[in-house]
């Protein structure tokens, strides 16, 4: 098996095992080539003589369907035979050598399609132009007389035909046109259609290769344990106690905070690690608890200093003069991503080369981590992606903890491939958690029940301060991302028009490392804002939908999705007996989303969610079937978080160690999800993977209030004795 191949191939056409064992083929250096030797026609497409079309994708596939959607966009412009398409992942090392020919690898923030659609479509269009030109040259006719469809080029006047595969070698030698016209999305034939994913077959027969499945000659397996208290270090460990155990090859320290056992199999490594005596220096955080963190955040609710994310008029003054004032305090906990595939990566180090294989949401971020941990220059480093068993933000670039660990282990055993796999327990204890946040909302109503003033004070953790401090520095200490969904402008802009508004953030960071968790800060901000909107509407004696509509006069797209879910759920019409409704909306990742839920409650605490309607206006829809699945999936992820999920802190460490303490929704609890897709076009494309996650929780909470008269203001609901049935 040759391990230093340039790419992994994913898709139904991939050869046995789902992992193509590529060989370097004896082609000259004149034309760049795909793994199967086919010539590149521009950087996004390589076409084999048998008309197989390799479409390059550098964003990561973690279930969200991005490789299928991006391939649809390329293929739409390329006019190729979809049944012959397969996907190839160029590596970050290759990209660096070629001056980042494929652009950004980062796959987070629902950016996979919305931030690369233009250049990948141009890549497909440019390749089509080159292929047609190559055929025209061969036939000595003007290219303008030739047409292309389904990988076939036709010159109608002379009735000649050829295929992409036959002219690809010649096309690859033509200059890549820079100025190519793109199709009007209204004329799309393949993009915009609900076609099936490219990667399903290997996911139903067990052949898809995830990082955890890698095997290489001579490979050893590592299990790791880092100090459970964040910021703690290894004081000592007694390797002699386990070094004689079956299969154990080596016990190593990893950085200053972790110990790993390397063994023939992972089960042997893990069994030995469980028995390895380790003494930790738990450091200064060993006394921190959820209660002490909550106290710090609570104080932030009243702090004088806070960063402003959105402001107009004079909220404080207007609140003073309001006819009626409403106030509420909400809270949102730490949560773990709990990807089904625990963190893992395989690394091999020699002084001449350091390579890693495995799941990452950002090939370039992993590449940077390998560079730093190996100490080798860029030309001696590379990263090969596998399929990801979930990502949800955990496998993003910052900080690539598991990649760094694997390289540090591999450096202690040069030449030996080391597969590092975290146990579920390690994964739970060393997450990059959804930030913890409290929020006080104060609203003022005038004599007519109009919202005249609103102050939203956030107090809690900043993700960017931890992972991208330079951004916070540029913002003079502010983390703009804290205000997702309620910000002054941009892709997460607040949609309500409130005459006197103040939204500010008292940043209170903790020793628990925060990370991007599907939806990021829209999860808590939507709960805070959209539940409070219902509280305000009630105080004003108005219908929750009507109250919102009056504030959305300047945001027609927000109004569009909100009206759509209201109509579909039957808002304003009688609900079935015992069934109660709630709704919510937000703008996030440049998409406008809304949700409406129907629930019933028995015994005051057993919640059954019957239906949820989710509407999204992402501007453009590349694959409606996958969007439907993303919306439904986002509700599962968001409602699992609402009902079950909290990572609590005791003695400086996270208390929950596995799914028995950190539950996730099952099929019995799954509501019927109805998706409404309202793409309204325009110049800006919105995201899909994350936006809708945030509307499920407030819609259900608002329905719960109507059902019970109880306003729940903190997550998760299990802490209130509320069950999901």
């Amino acid at each position, binding site marked *: 098996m040759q391990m230093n191949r340039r790419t992994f191939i994913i898709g139904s056409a991939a050869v046995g095992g789902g992992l193509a064992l590529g060989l370097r083929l004896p082609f000259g250096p004149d034309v760049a080539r795909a793994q199967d030797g086919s010539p590149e026609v521009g950087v996004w497409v390589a076409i084999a003589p048998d008309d197989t079309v390799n479409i390059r994708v550098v964003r990561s596939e973690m279930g969200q369907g991005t490789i299928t959607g991006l391939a649809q966009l390329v293929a739409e412009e390329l006019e190729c035979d979809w049944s012959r398409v397969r996907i190839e992942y160029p590596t970050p090392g290759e990209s660096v050598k070629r001056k980042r020919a494929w652009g950004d690898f980062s796959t987070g923030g629902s950016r996979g399609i919305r931030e690369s659609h233009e250049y990948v479509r141009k890549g497909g269009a440019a390749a089509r132009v080159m292929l047609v030109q190559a055929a025209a040259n061969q036939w000595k006719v003007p290219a303008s007389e030739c047409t292309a469809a389904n990988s076939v080029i036709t010159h109608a006047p002379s009735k000649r035909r050829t295929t992409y595969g036959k002219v690809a070698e010649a096309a690859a030698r033509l200059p890549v046109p820079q100025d190519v016209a793109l199709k009007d999305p209204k004329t799309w034939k393949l993009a915009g259609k609900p076609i099936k994913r490219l990667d399903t077959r290997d996911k139903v027969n067990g052949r898809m290769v995830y990082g955890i499945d890698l095997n290489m000659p001579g490979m050893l397996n590592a299990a790791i344990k880092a100090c459970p208290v964040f910021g703690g270090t290894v004081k000592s460990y007694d390797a002699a106690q386990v070094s004689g155990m079956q299969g154990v090859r080596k016990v190593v320290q990893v950085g200053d905070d972790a110990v790993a056992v390397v063994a023939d199999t992972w089960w042997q490594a893990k069994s030995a690690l469980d028995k390895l005596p380790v003494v930790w220096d738990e450091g200064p955080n060993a006394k921190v608890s959820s209660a002490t963190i909550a106290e710090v955040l609570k104080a932030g609710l009243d702090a004088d200093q806070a960063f402003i994310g959105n402001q107009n008029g004079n909220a404080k003054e207007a609140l003073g003069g309001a006819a009626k004032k409403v106030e509420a305090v909400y809270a949102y906990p730490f949560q773990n991503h709990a990807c*089904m595939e625990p963190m893992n990566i395989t690394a091999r180090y020699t002084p001449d080369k350091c390579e890693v294989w495995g799941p990452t949401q950002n090939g370039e971020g992993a590449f940077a981590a390998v560079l730093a941990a190996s100490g080798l220059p860029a030309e001696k480093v590379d990263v090969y992606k596998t399929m990801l068993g979930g990502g949800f933000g955990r496998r993003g670039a910052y900080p690539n903890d598991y990649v760094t660990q694997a390289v540090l282990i591999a450096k202690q055993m040069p030449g030996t491939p080391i597969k590092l796999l975290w146990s*579920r327990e390690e994964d739970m204890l060393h997450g990059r958690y959804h930030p913890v946040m409290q929020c006080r909302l104060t609203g003022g109503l005038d004599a007519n029940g109009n919202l005249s003033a609103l102050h939203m004070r956030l107090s809690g953790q900043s993700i960017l301060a931890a992972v991208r401090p330079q951004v916070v520095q540029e913002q003079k200490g502010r983390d703009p991302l804290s205000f997702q969904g309620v910000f002054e402008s941009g892709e997460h802009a607040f949609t309500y028009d409130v005459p006197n508004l103040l939204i500010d953030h008292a940043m209170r960071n903790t020793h628990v490392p925060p990370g991007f968790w599907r939806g990021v800060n829209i999860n808590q901000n939507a709960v805070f804002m959209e539940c409070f909107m219902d509280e305000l509407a009630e105080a004003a004696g108005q219908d929750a939908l009507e109250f919102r509509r009056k504030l959305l006069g300047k945001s027609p797209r927000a109004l569009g999705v909100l009206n759509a879910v209201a109509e579909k759920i039957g808002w304003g019409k009688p609900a079935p007996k015992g069934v109660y409704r709630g709704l919510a909306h937000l703008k996030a990742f440049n998409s406008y989303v809304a949700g409406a839920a129907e629930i019933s409650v028995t015994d005051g605490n057993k919640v059954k969610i019957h239906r949820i309607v989710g509407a999204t206006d992402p501007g453009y829809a590349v694959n409606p079937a996958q969007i439907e699945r993303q919306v439904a999936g986002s*509700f599962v992820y968001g409602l699992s978080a609402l009902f079950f999920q909290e990572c609590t802190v005791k003695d400086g460490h996270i208390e929950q160690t596995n799914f028995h303490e950190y539950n996730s929704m099952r099929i019995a609890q799954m509501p019927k999800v109805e998706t409404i897709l309202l793409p309204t076009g325009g110049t800006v494309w919105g995201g899909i993977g994350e936006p809708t996650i945030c509307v499920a929780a407030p819609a259900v909470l608002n329905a719960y209030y109507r059902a019970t008269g109880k306003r729940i203001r903190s997550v998760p609901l299990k802490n209130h004795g509320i069950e999901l049935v």
Partner: protein
Amino acid sequence: MIRLSINGKTHNVEVDPNTPLLWVIREQVGLTGTKYGCGIAQCGACTVHIDGAAVRSCSFPVSAAAGKRITTIEGLAQGKNLHKVQQAWLEHDVPQCGYCQSGMIMAVAALLKEKPKPTDADIDAAITNICRCGTFQQVREAIHAAANANANAKA
């Protein structure tokens, strides 16, 4: 030495008898379609069939599987013919990341053997696998489709 019958083939493995079946399937036998998710029989990603019944192999000692008929996701299809559950999964485009789906498919295949035409309540009771991507809506549709394929095949 423990003698295992997996997907109709015999494997003699030299392992600690307490090793969970999951890890023997993955590491000694080399069949990686069966996944590790939790190690405590909570998530179901490791589901295989032992003598036709769904078992969470992460919490099942290999010694207890000796002499029994073990089927993993790789052995579910009959040659090139996918199992009706796999076929329904393809037709309904069920998987997202796909990591939990081997276990989900094995659990469903065992259910359909016991209850060829399961009701929604049967599904709710029998299928308790965790899927963090949230494919449940498609899972339910595909189960009913597979059950109907079952009925049609018999008709």
